[in-house]
């Protein structure tokens, strides 16, 4: 059998090939693979599978350098999500994914469907989602468009996760003009399961039926729809948007049905239909199982009449799954789906013949040999070269930048920094996320460096966090890549958890630009360095390239999603000072580094200098120290120093919980050689501020681990405010002013009528909220 064109299909021309994003070289490879001209349907299938998103054609060789193994890793990269064992027969599945471009076009639906997609990746592994995280990057909050994006993205994330009943517990948000026009919206999902319930998306068993379940297939998000068949030329159709609309209610039913299905023993594999929909899910399942498949598009439940095989294969309608059932169990599968009011239709079969075949009824419309459809995708090794500008930027002497007159009072600088949207409280955002559903959130957003979730039925808890400072990566990709992992690990350690493994989302620009590919390669190498040093292998992730705006690429942003384990949930440690009289101990060492700091960017508008150095061995010893001190019960609070440096970290320890502020009196006289601003606002890595009633013990523990440690002050009540002495300079700020600066900055900005966000709110018509 061989595929033949359908009547009415467009003729394959070089222009049509180009519109499908295939290069002449790739098209030749396709023709060689088929031994003939492809049909229109085949062209569509290959354009999707060989897209960067599905094929990793520019990134795979570099990704291969990442460490992926550890005794606790049950599933590394290559599946819908990574899985690690946490003991007690339990396992955690987790993955992060981007929805940057859809969110730039339609922030609400873009973000919502991003959440929906990553949830499906986790529950198709057999895990019940227990937590969501997100990592967001926007341009300056001073522009109305950015406020519109922020409002829509946050509402989209909230509405979807809230409706699903999965708490959104942590994340990070940064604002920088580099993300203007190209926001980043990365969502992470964490799920819990019994080890024995792990299921993989691998088609197996000749004769087993392939079943489409969940929502019906519509004409959503079909790429290149503009040049498709005749019925598309109708007036209304021409306007058809590419956005997909999420339906969290259907997803909730799909979640319950999928978990029931997996536990029922009636199926052998399940995979979500995400990017490139039915095409990529079926091709990937076949490739993993090394089998052939045949699919009849007339059997796929559709939402609209007259859909072509091309459209059915490429539709990105949400809330759908592809299932391989055991032969003879079709009825049971349908029964489970119908219990949850969802459709399930047998649409194909696993076959022995090594082909990927699509029919429309009895007519073959696409047929590819073997599993070469996925494996034959060309791989590229783009040129990588750091630009001269990048070198100049990094080597600029930032200490030469003159202080502003107002900076003579460091309290002014501190208050300004606390107002920087990147640093300021994100309460306006996470108060829109249900963070307590599932009654397991021990430490939710805003209370600790990472979120902590107890594991019901055990003493254990999980700690989860996303992190990345794209500015560091921009200035020095290798160091920035290391820091992203190290900071995520430090955050997880600060709540009392052993860092275990990461997932990552690599948001970069156009890889065909040598300076972008240089950033990509070096950042991944840096991540790999840190993952090896900190024993946190990579279990999966996602690559998002071509994040560009007219000014150029966004900051290279390799977002890290870290998972850690607490053996005892009672060790969960928050970030705020709690007890007047406690000693404040700084673990780690101050340095004279200012490069890449929020201080330079926000106060001076300068993004330059070398980012802080990253001593991975030192980070490991710091993490071990923090964990030892927490587990022995000596730590009341722990908070790492990141954007804004030591002064901001201390301020946050005082006022992060505005309902229960504390003060602190701190003496930094031990570092006379450092400039005041580097000491207060520099972002030296490897530092954690702890409060403790047993300072001597904590310092002794640090010594044992070879970590510098020093008592730098005392926790006081709120009335005393925050007072820091640095030898010559004195900083004094009332907690009220710090609270005002830190807690009101974002609400005040967002109150400035993100008018479209209010008036176009889809929920105004009474949708899920």
């Amino acid at each position, binding site marked *: 059998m061989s595929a033949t064109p359908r009547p009415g299909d467009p003729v394959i021309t070089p222009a049509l090939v180009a519109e499908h994003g295939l290069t002449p070289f790739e098209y030749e490879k396709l023709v060689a693979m088929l031994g003939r001209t492809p049909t229109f349907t085949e062209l569509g299938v290959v354009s999707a599978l060989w897209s960067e998103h599905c094929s990793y054609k520019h990134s795979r060789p570099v990704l291969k350098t990442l460490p992926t193994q550890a005794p606790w890793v049950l599933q590394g990269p290559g599946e819908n999500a990574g899985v690690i064992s946490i003991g007690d027969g339990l396992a955690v599945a987790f993955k992060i994914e981007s929805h940057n471009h859809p969110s730039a*076009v339609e922030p609400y*639906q873009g973000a919502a469907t991003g959440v929906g997609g990553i949830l499906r990746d986790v529950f198709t592994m057999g895990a019940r989602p227990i937590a969501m995280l997100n990592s967001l990057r926007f341009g300056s909050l001073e522009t109305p468009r950015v406020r519109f994006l922020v409002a829509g993205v946050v509402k989209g994330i909230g509405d979807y996760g809230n409706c699903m009943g999965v708490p959104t517990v942590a994340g990070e948000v940064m604002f920088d003009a580099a993300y203007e026009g190209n926001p980043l919206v990365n969502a992470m999902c964490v799920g819990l399961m019994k080890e024995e319930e792990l299921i993989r998306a691998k088609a197996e068993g000749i004769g087993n039926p392939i079943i489409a379940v969940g929502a019906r297939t*519509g004409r959503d998000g079909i790429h290149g729809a503009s040049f498709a068949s005749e019925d598309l030329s109708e007036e209304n159709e021409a306007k058809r948007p590419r956005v997909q*609309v999420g339906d969290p209610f259907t997803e909730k039913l799909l979640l319950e049905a999928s978990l029931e299905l997996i536990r029922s023993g009636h199926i052998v594999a399940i995979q979500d239909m995400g990017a490139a929909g039915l095409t990529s899910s079926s091709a990937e399942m076949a490739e993993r199982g090394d089998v052939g498949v045949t699919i009849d598009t007339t059997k796929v439940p559709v939402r*609209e009449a007259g859909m072509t095989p091309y459209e059915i294969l490429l539709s990105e309608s949400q809330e759908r799954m592809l299932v391989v059932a055991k032969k003879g169990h079709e009825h049971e599968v349908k029964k489970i789906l119908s219990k949850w009011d969802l459709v399930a239709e047998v649409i194909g079969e696993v076959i022995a013949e090594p082909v990927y075949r699509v029919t429309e009824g009895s007519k073959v419309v696409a047929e590819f040999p073997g599993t070469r459809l996925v494996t034959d995708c060309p791989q590229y090794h783009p040129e990588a070269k750091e630009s001269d500008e990048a070198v100049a930027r990094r080597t600029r002497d930032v200490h030469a930048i003159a202080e502003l007159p107002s900076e003579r009072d460091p309290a002014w600088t501190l208050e300004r920094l606390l107002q920087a949207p990147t640093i300021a409280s994100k309460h306006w955002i996470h108060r829109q996320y249900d963070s307590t559903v599932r009654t397991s959130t021990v430490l939710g957003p805003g209370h600790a460096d990472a979120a902590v979730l107890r594991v019901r039925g055990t003493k254990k808890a999980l700690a989860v966090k996303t992190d990345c400072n794209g500015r560091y990566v921009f200035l020095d990709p290798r160091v920035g890549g290391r820091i992203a992992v190290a900071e995520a690990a430090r955050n997880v350690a600060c709540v009392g958890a052993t860092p275990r493994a990461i997932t990552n989302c690599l948001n970069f620009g156009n890889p065909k630009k040598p300076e972008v590919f240089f950033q990509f390669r070096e950042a991944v190498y840096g991540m790999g360095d840190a993952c090896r040093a900190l024993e946190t292998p990579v279990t999966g992730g996602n690559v998002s390239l071509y994040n560009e705006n007219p000014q150029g690429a966004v900051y290279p942003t390799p977002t890290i999603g870290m998972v850690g384990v607490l053996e005892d949930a009672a060790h969960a440690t928050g970030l705020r000072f709690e007890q007047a009289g406690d000693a404040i101990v700084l673990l780690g060492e101050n340095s004279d580094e200012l490069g890449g700091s929020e201080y330079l960017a926000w106060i001076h508008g300068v993004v330059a200098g070398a980012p802080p150095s990253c001593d991975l061995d030192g980070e490991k010893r710091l993490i071990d120290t923090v964990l030892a001190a927490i587990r022995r019960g000596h730590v009341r609070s722990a908070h790492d120093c990141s954007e804004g440096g030591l002064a901001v970290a201390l301020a946050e320890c005082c006022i992060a919980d505005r309902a229960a502020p504390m003060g602190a009196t701190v003496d930094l006289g031990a570092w006379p050689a450092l400039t005041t601003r580097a000491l207060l606002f520099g972002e030296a890595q490897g530092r954690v501020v702890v409060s403790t009633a047993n300072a001597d013990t904590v310092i002794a523990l640090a010594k044992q681990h070879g970590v510098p440690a020093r008592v730098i002050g005392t926790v006081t009540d709120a009335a005393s405010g925050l007072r820091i002495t640095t030898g010559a300079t004195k900083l004094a700020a009332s907690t009220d002013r710090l609270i005002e600066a830190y807690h009101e900055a974002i609400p005040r900005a967002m109150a400035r009528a993100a008018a479209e966000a209010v008036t176009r709110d889809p929920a105004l018509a009474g949708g899920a909220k």
Partner: protein
Amino acid sequence: MTLFRVSVHIVPRKGLLDPQGKAVTDALHTLGFSAVADVHVGRHLIIETQATDAKAAEASVKEMCSRLLANPVTEDYEIEAVKPV
């Protein structure tokens, strides 16, 4: 200047998933309204605005819709009525 009351319908664009419409259709079927073929749920806005005449009122509301009230990516709008108050 006269005060006009302008009625506007904003509905999800055709072809896009309308989960709310589907949920309501299903619910109506469950309630026994089996003759219902389809339901779409949109927003109904009543805007009271000053204008020199009905035409000006309509033009101004059209601008409100395209600039703000309707989501250009997912929704269509329609001015249903313009009446002096």
